[in-house]
């Protein structure tokens, strides 16, 4: 007993120590950081200056992001204290070298952030290749600032700062599932906002599954008859809005249709997509109409989702409905196919349709495990079943996204933050050319027990642990997750202050705080 309580005391002591070192509470940790010991005070009229920048910001992405940053630094506090005469930081000077603000896979995200020492009339400087790098710099800068609640001014400790930063992986994803439960537009926007705090950059929108088809697609206007209810739907304008909202925050939206196995809801509007009314999944492989619908959907998608990739699913295909339904079983016989052949035929044909619309294709790993050699070379294989897949995919020369369910499935409530933190995408992949094929990783928020009421606390803070794994250089990542616990606890309190319902670190995913206490201790 005595041992336990002194350990707890020690932990508490270490926690309070870590709070003294304000400056190190950055999440995710930048590639390179140096800092001093001065304190700066942000001007009440904190300015954005962009002279000399090649980027004109005609779309207002930079200006809006700057305003958002100022707002989240203040986090609803009144900041009107009188400033000292020295050490006032007047604003941020931002230099963006590229005029182009098209966001896509591989868009340059690096930035340099320099914050001076105690000069008079000082500005902090940001340099970035693209406006999206500058957005990451804003996020880092915001995490260096604190409102002093006694003086009511914003302080920036440990100046001067020199931060040089860039992500380790170009694909840092979070999946949401709007088929098992509908997520209102506002909820999705809140998730997107919270992703920017952890520098995640891909929202994988698993829009449709067997349970419901919530999205409007003009080519086949009855598809969204498969929604749960009249108001649990997204119009195409809503989808446009989500994409635009995300892109203005440096986040790509990856849309998915999961064919042929997770598509029962398609047949509510078009019953001929079902093998039969008693056997409704997978989609009827023998019916040309099936591929016409896929073509129509992807044609509509290509007008909304400008990301380089589309996700075609392809997991968990049980072909017994095909072999049991007479007209399909005949079709299989006529084409000399068994169920597995037909699965391959379906996936490859869907791939061709996607390629014809200009997309590269992402498929769940079963497609690779079953007929990897025949997949289009433009395929990205999405791992989920377990570890060790990425190395096989890379050895086969294909690209891979890591989401092994034991570590990175957020719906696995017993997968704890330390496991999320330690899950290394490049494990056992040593050749540089193969390492490059691992474009990143993704944490998956499957929606069976997640709706608008609990998504944020199921996603956070565990997604943040993975986000650092995907952003920070390997050599700067802790070998022991306990070394980052207080910093992650601090980040979760930051999320809370910003209005994100991130759960305590202690306990299983989304657990309530076990008892009364201070946020950073839970």
């Amino acid at each position: 007993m005595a041992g336990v309580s002194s350990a707890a005391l020690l932990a508490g002591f270490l926690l309070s120590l870590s709070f003294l070192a304000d400056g190190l509470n950055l999440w995710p940790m930048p590639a390179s950081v140096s800092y001093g010991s001065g304190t700066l005070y942000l001007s009440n009229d904190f300015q954005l200056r962009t002279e000399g920048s090649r980027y004109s910001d005609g779309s207002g992405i930079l200006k809006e992001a700057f305003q958002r940053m100022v707002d989240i630094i203040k986090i609803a506090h009144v900041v009107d204290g009188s400033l000292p005469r020295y050490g006032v930081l007047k604003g941020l000077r931002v230099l963006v070298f590229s005029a182009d603000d098209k966001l896509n896979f591989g868009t340059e995200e690096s930035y340099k952030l320099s914050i001076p020492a105690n000069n008079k009339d000082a500005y902090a400087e940001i340099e970035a290749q693209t406006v999206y790098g500058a957005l990451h710099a804003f996020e880092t800068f915001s995490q260096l600032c604190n409102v002093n609640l006694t003086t009511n001014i914003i302080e920036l400790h440990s100046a001067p700062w020199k931060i040089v930063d860039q992500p380790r992986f170009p694909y840092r994803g979070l999946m949401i599932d709007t088929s098992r439960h509908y997520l209102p537009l506002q909820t999705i926007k809140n998730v997107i906002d919270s992703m920017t705090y952890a520098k995640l950059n891909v929202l994988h929108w698993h829009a449709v599954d067997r349970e419901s088809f919530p999205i409007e697609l003009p080519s086949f206007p009855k598809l969204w008859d498969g929604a749960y209810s009249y108001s649990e739907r997204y119009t195409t304008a809503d989808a446009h809005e989500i994409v635009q909202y995300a892109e203005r925050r440096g986040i790509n939206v990856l849309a998915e249709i999961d064919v042929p196995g997770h598509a029962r809801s398609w047949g509510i509007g078009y019953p001929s997509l079902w093998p039969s009314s008693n056997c409704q999944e997978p989609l009827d492989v023998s019916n040309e109409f099936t591929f016409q619908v896929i073509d129509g959907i992807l044609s509509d998608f290509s007008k909304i989702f400008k990301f380089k990739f589309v996700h075609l699913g392809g997991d968990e295909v049980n072909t017994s409905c095909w072999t049991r339904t007479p007209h399909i079983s005949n079709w299989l016989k006529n084409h000399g196919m068994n169920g597995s052949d037909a699965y391959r035929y379906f996936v490859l044909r869907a791939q061709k349709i996607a390629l014809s619309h200009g997309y590269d294709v992402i498929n769940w790993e079963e497609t690779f495990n079953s007929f990897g050699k025949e997949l289009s070379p433009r395929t990205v294989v999405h791992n989920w079943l377990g570890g060790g897949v990425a190395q096989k995919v890379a050895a086969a020369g294909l690209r891979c996204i890591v989401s092994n369910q034991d570590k990175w499935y957020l719906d696995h409530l017993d997968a704890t933050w330390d496991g999320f933190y330690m899950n290394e995408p490049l494990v056992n992949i040593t050749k540089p050319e193969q390492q490059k094929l691992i474009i990143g990783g993704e944490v998956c928020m499957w929606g069976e027990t997640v709706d608008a009421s609990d998504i944020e606390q199921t996603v956070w803070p565990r997604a943040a642990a993975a986000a650092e794994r995907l952003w920070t250089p390997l050599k700067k990542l802790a070998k022991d997750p306990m070394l980052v616990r207080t910093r992650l606890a601090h980040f979760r309190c930051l999320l809370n202050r910003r209005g994100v319902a991130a759960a305590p670190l202690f306990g299983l995913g989304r657990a309530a705080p076990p008892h009364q206490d201070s946020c950073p201790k839970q």
Partner: protein
Amino acid sequence: MPFGAFTALHLLLIALLFSGVLLPAGGRKRSGLRRSTVRLDDSSIYLWPLPKQYSHGSQTLTVDPDIALEARGPGGSSAIVSEAFDRYKNLVFKQQAGYAGGDHDIAKLIVVVASENDTLQLGVNESYTLYIRGASDGGRLSIVSEVSIEANTIYGALRGLETLSQLCIYNYDTKTIEVHKAPWFIQDEPRFSYRGLLLDTSRHFLPVNIIKQVIESMSYAKLNVLHWHIIDEESFPLEVPTYPNLWEGSYTKWERYTVEDAYEIVDFAKRRGIHIMAEIDVPGHAESWGVGYPALWPSRNCTETLDVTKNFSFEVISGILTDMRKIFPFELFHLGGDEVHGDCWLSTPHVKEWLNQHNMTTNDAYQYFVLRAQDIAIAHNWTPVNWEETFNSFGEKLNPHTVVHNWLGPGVCPKVVAKGLRCIASNQGVWYLDHLDIPWEDFYTSEPLEGINVTSQQELVLGGEVCMWGETTDTSDVQQTIWPRAAAAAERLWSSIEATSAGGLNDTVLHRLQYFRGLLNHRGVPAAPVTNRYARQPPIGPGSCFSQ
């Protein structure tokens, strides 16, 4: 899809029953026969809480995304009205992205406010009349409909705006906002003037943003008092300029509210017609006070219960109340007074000696403390509210203006009002939100006037309050622990007793509450599924928001 079938059935029912007919609804004078009709009617009306009286037709009108406000009357020009109009316009039109252009039936909202007085006090008139005129007038079809809200005060206008916003429904096919079942005539006012929610920022700190989100969500359910249990044993998060060391009792220096934060919260709430009732819970729940001023503790080893012997204890209370009086304009102030244990007083020599000298037991000292704190509150022009133990122990000694706050169990308010004191009902068995095993039905059916039959005594029950104690509630789970159960109590406190007394809740109320929960979700409030066995649990499996 089941829902599609359901909707079709509903439309058919509505068409058969109500086409073109204005039904009398609400009110007290209904016959039994009509009530059964109205119950059917209720189940097709998705308003929460139900208005006092309403009638409607069967037309569908479209609303212009650029709908304009025309403010009239002495109070109509208040910025609170125009801000609220913009807020609701956003709520209605920002939940979806696309809107069809063209002519719309409703392009203007007229808000008439009779009084220019924007003082927000207990009992402020919250009544309003909402009239949505049909598109056909005197047999001639007119293109433009008229919508008006008439209210005595701006706060009534706010309630009317909430009701109107709940009548605005997005049509996913035509991409327009529609009002169904027009014309509408709604006359509404609350049953109780005090409809409260307690937040506890001592057991867990809640950031200002979160408190604002809760206030915003309260306005959706027409709750009107945020009881801010700021301080307790665990932490003292609020800045008190007169005694600047008090907030050293906060958990960390980030888990604090400045005076400006408190002003901001009060102002934010006022703009939504919500009072903030502050609380200091003395002398029993105040251990954190002594972190900054250890002299307030009986001793270093015995830190519970403020030292009753020292004038300093009362000076600090007086200082806190002086500072708080500037921030909190509401006439009620909560002084706590629950769960006071005299052990620390008895076991501390100088306190025990003092008790002997004054010939007091610990119970006497408890009474002495509470009454002296009451005097301080009254001297600051506040009406004291105390938890029920004070009434149970020495009720006849309490200041006659005291409002007694029930919590321990049922049957307390009848005793309180029999003594001529006022009462707020928060029976923990049905209205404590931290009791996760209390289902929404119990929140809904809890009747504050139960056992009180004399009208003059009924009037002493100000209302009720649901309490969100914070031991296991922080930013990550406060909203889903509050909602949707708080909404069930909110309807009990707002709507007429006839409307809330219908039997068979699963047939009459459940679907409408599920719909309101969906509305909260759409507005960004993470309200939990309605039919969960325990509060704030995740949904049990895939499914529609309207069936969980």
